[in-house]
Each structure stands twice: as structure tokens, then as C-alpha cells.
């Protein structure tokens, strides 16, 4: 995989995560273009329409790098109105941007980048944390051009939100690209291995007669062992330590047999699991005996 391909994949996964959040804020009125890899040495915010507001968020852990979301002043006014439950068409476009509107833009950026960091974490296989957003106002193209340091790689994605153009700019250092290429190569190798294992004779795949049979599937966060005397005397409010950390994968069981592992997600305010590993069908499986879940 070339650096350009890795950048395009990064742009796609981040771009989709950001689009999802923008659609929530904008009542569905958001679209995005394709990731565009900017030539090295080009100022990341060159030729943006001004006046504009840029909210930047840096990754603080796992990987270095940053993201900038740039909106026109009118775009900020319309997005802030939508976020406050008002009609964007009623926003006073002649007024100066207030603290609340700038704060809304920063908060929108924060939520977009948290979603993007989640998507990137999945690709890299490691947690990516973000810092709080920093908001800047640009009244001239020169101010925008000098505002951020150059990085070896820059990816730009155009959006339209509430009929206003805006742009996501990703500042990508070399180390990030190396990690991306390595992680994506591993994912591709796993996909090839998995398809080879499950093709042909379809070993382990149930026949048509068994497919409608319902199975009990559960996800296990962690386990605890304790004497029975302690277990039966647990009062309400007691805290029981489990043996797994918050960053560890959770284990997946079907009818008591462990069949894989995954990561916990929130989907529409409900817990969900993204499956990351499926155990080979012939491998010995752990069971859920004595577990706490």
C-alpha cells in the first residue's frame, strides 16, 4: 500500500465519521466529497473563503496529528442555530459571531473528531484520544494561510452543511502514515486468511436446515472470582473488580462457547459490539463456566 492509498483510506474513514455527526446536527442536510491529498508544502488552509472559523483538535495519545474543520461565518451561524433547535434560515447573518456560536462550532468539531478518532482507533487497533478543540477566526486569507504548521501530508475533504461549504483538513505526520500502512496491511492479510479458511467446503458453516436455529449470544466485559460466602453477601452498591481493563477486547460467547472477541461501541445510545476476531472453528474454546458478565 502506498502512502497516498493510506491517506485516502484515512480520509474516507474519518470523512464518513464526520459526515454522520454533521447530519445529526444539520437534520440530514450534509454531504461530502472525496478525500483530496494536498501536495507537500502547501499551506493547509490556502484559498479558503473568508471570513471563516476554524476549529482544530489534536490527537493527544496513541498517534500524533491533528484535524481542522473550517466553516464560513454564515455556516457557523446556521449550524449553531440548528444545534440550538432553531431554524437555520432565521439566523441573523449580518450579526457578528457571538461566544455561544463559536462555542457551538467548537463543540461540533469536538464531537466530529471524537467520532473520527473512534474510526481511526478501529483501523490502527489502538486507542486514539483527542484534546479539547481550539477555535480561531480568520478575516483575511493570509491569516488563514499562516495559522497552522505544515505537516508532511495533508488531506482535505469538502462538505456542504446546511447549504454552506466547509472543509475538513487532516494534518498527518509521517509516523502516522507508517502506522496506517502497517495496520491496513494486517487487516488485509487477516481478510485474505479468513476468506481462504471459510471458502471451498464451507467447513463450520451450518447447513440450510440449521440456519434458522436461534442461539444465545453474549458479550463478556470481564470476570471475577470470589468465595461463595462473599458472593452471597454482596450488598447493593458493592463494586466488584473485573479482570479486564477498559481498553481490552471483550469476549464473545455463543451458547457458552467463546467464538471471538470485539470492541464495545455505542450505536444510537445502546451498547453494540464490533467483532474483531473470530476463532477458528476447530480450536479449543473457552467456556463461560464460573464467569461473571
Amino acid at each position: 500500500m502506498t502512502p497516498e492509498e493510506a491517506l485516502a483510506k484515512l480520509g474516507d474513514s474519518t470523512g464518513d465519521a464526520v459526515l454522520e455527526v454533521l447530519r445529526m446536527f444539520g437534520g440530514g442536510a450534509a454531504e461530502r466529497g472525496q478525500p483530496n491529498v494536498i501536495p507537500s508544502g502547501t499551506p493547509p488552509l490556502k484559498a479558503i473563503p473568508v471570513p471563516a472559523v476554524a476549529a482544530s483538535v489534536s490527537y493527544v495519545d496513541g498517534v500524533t496529528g491533528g484535524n481542522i474543520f473550517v466553516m464560513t461565518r454564515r455556516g457557523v451561524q446556521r449550524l449553531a442555530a440548528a444545534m440550538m433547535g432553531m431554524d437555520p434560515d432565521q439566523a441573523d447573518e449580518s450579526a457578528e459571531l457571538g461566544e455561544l456560536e463559536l462555542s457551538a462550532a467548537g463543540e461540533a468539531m469536538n464531537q466530529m473528531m471524537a467520532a473520527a478518532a473512534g474510526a481511526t482507533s478501529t483501523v490502527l487497533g489502538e486507542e486514539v484520544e483527542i484534546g479539547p478543540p481550539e477555535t480561531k477566526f480568520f478575516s483575511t486569507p493570509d491569516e488563514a494561510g499562516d495559522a497552522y504548521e505544515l505537516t508532511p501530508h495533508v488531506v482535505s475533504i469538502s462538505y456542504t452543511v446546511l447549504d454552506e461549504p466547509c472543509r475538513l483538513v487532516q494534518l498527518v505526520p509521517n509516523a502516522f502514515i507508517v502506522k496506517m500502512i502497517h495496520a491496513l496491511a494486517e487487516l488485509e492479510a487477516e481478510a485474505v486468511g479468513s476468506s481462504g479458511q471459510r471458502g471451498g467446503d464451507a467447513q463450520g458453516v451450518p447447513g440450510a436446515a440449521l440456519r434458522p436455529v436461534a442461539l444465545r449470544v453474549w458479550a463478556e466485559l470481564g470476570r471475577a472470582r470470589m468465595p461463595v460466602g462473599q458472593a452471597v453477601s454482596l450488598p447493593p452498591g458493592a463494586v466488584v473488580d473485573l479482570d479486564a481493563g477498559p481498553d481490552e477486547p471483550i469476549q464473545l460467547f455463543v451458547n457458552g462457547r467463546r467464538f471471538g472477541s470485539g470492541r464495545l461501541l455505542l450505536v444510537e445510545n445502546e451498547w453494540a459490539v464490533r467483532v474483531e476476531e473470530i476463532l477458528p472453528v476447530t480450536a479449543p474454546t473457552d467456556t463461560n463456566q464460573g464467569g461473571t458478565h
Partner: protein
Amino acid sequence: MARVLVVDDAAFMRKMLSDVLAKAGHEVIGEGANGNEAVERYQALRPDIMTLDITMPEKDGLSALKEILSLEPTAKVVMCSALGQESKVLEAIKAGAKDFVVKPFQPDRVIDAIGKAL
């Protein structure tokens, strides 16, 4: 009705949360913009419950939560998180947070979380 402390680094989010809580009959007795203010104002105001953002400058919500719970083990805290912060939410719940809401939040979900945690 509960006396609520609202902590979020975004003035916009503090206003939205305060409006939702006030409409539901709760009293917002104070606000904070980072983890340090969360700890200071919790001790000063002794709210019935507090909402606490996770990503904040100076001190994040998770560190503030742990500090508050070490000072007051019965403190009632509802975390506010963005999408993609599942592991942080899980760590907060394990540390003792009563519940969480995911931003962009639904007003009913906020009121429900506050009601259940009280």
C-alpha cells in the same frame, strides 16, 4: 427537583444542558469549564448530582470524577461523552459514575439519566 452542577468546557453545551435541566424543574446551582473547576465547585456547592464532560482542558472529566469520588464516595455523577469514547465511558462507569449520555444528546435521555441516578 435536584440541585445540579453542570461541567463542560463548551459554553454552548453548558447552556443547552442548563436549559434542559431547568425545563424539567431542576435547579442548576453552578457551572464549570474544566476538571479543576469540577472538583472545586463540587466541594464548594455540594450538588445533589453533577453532569461531567469527558474531554476538557487542564483536567479531563475522568480524572475529575476519580478525584471527586475519592473525596466524596457517594457523589452522583452523570458523564457526557461524544461518539467514539466508549472505552472512556466504560472506565468512568467502572470508576463509579452513575450513568452517561452521548452527545449530541436527546433532552429526554438527559432527564432520564438524572432521574435514575438520583
